[in-house]
């Protein structure tokens, strides 16, 4: 056990030399909840990949670069999935991926952290910040947080769908990212 505990410390020393670890997609989730006339509707993206570096002892040095396959969107009905892929929504034919690249990670204290970065969806890039928590689960570092975004800032839902009375502008993106320990 003692040896295992030493590994992150050892990693810290060589961190700049290491390649960032690809995240464990099987244990990671990217869900989102939007409100349709106040009805919470939840969906998720089944396919995404990326690399995340996060040392809980030195979170400020962490980095994240995550790409999401927009066509892997899942919603409660097949009809909704078909609609979400169309040009008015994600336009997956033209914009097959969305991407988040972190710029900084802050330690807010009390086990809370905050990541700032650039989120690109449908060719629109916006600065975002999201509070998150991180914990060690065996060999994995598990990060969980919620990122509220304005769907209209990314032109998600154009034309008739821009009406926020039907589909609210704010969408909560809930992320759970499992980062394996580097080699």
């Amino acid at each position: 056990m003692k040896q295992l505990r030493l590994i992150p410390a050892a990693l810290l020393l060589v961190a700049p030399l290491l390649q960032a670890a690809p995240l464990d997609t099987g244990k990671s989730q990217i869900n989102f909840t939007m409100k349709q006339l106040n009805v919470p509707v939840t969906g998720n993206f089944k396919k995404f990949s990326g690399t995340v570096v996060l040392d809980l002892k030195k979170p400020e040095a962490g980095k994240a670069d995550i790409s999401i396959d927009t066509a892997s969107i899942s919603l409660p009905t097949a009809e909704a999935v078909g609609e979400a892929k169309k040009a008015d929504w994600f336009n997956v034919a033209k914009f097959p991926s969305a991407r988040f690249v972190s710029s900084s990670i802050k330690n807010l204290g009390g086990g809370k952290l905050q990541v700032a970065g650039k989120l690109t969806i449908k060719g629109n890039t916006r600065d975002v910040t999201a509070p998150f928590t991180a914990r060690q689960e065996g060999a994995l570092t598990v990060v969980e947080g919620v990122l509220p975004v304005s769907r209209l800032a990314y032109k998600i839902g154009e034309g008739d769908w821009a009406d926020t009375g039907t589909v609210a502008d704010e969408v909560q993106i809930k992320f759970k990212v499992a980062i394996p320990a580097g080699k």
Partner: protein
Amino acid sequence: MKSSERYSSPAIALHWLIAGLIIATFIAGLLVSGLPLSPAKFKYIAWHKWAGITILALVAVRLLVRLLKRPPALPAHMNGLERLLAHGGHLALYLLMFAVPLTGWLMSSAYGFPVVLFKLVQLPDLVAQNEQLAATLKTVHETLNWIMAACVAGHVLAAIKHHVIDKDGMLYRMSLRGPRE
């Protein structure tokens, strides 16, 4: 016809209110189910659900009223079979008035689109999200609706028979105004 032979005022008010809501909600449901996805469809579905839950609540009140205040006796001229049909028909209508909105609520839960009454109160999900179960419940909801439509048609035809053929003044039991003196 004496006023004592009429349904109680709350029962009469609820009968017509629920009748109007059922017809409107039935037609709305029928029209909405054929629409392609659009913001308008979301709105119509929401209204349809609100109306359905309102009907469910009103039917519960109506059942309570019926249990507290027994309906007037059936006309003496009705034979055994007619009485059986009348009671059976009313029993079926009551069961359906509960079952139709409940299956709608169930299918909403199964689809993962919870019911948020009047945009204010989120009702609990009755079952976990499951698209296959949702599709089955949709079929059940639709089938029960058509059975209810048949029962309502039978109900209306029976009322017309009493009024036109039997001329027993039965319609006045449930009319909003009593018979002219």
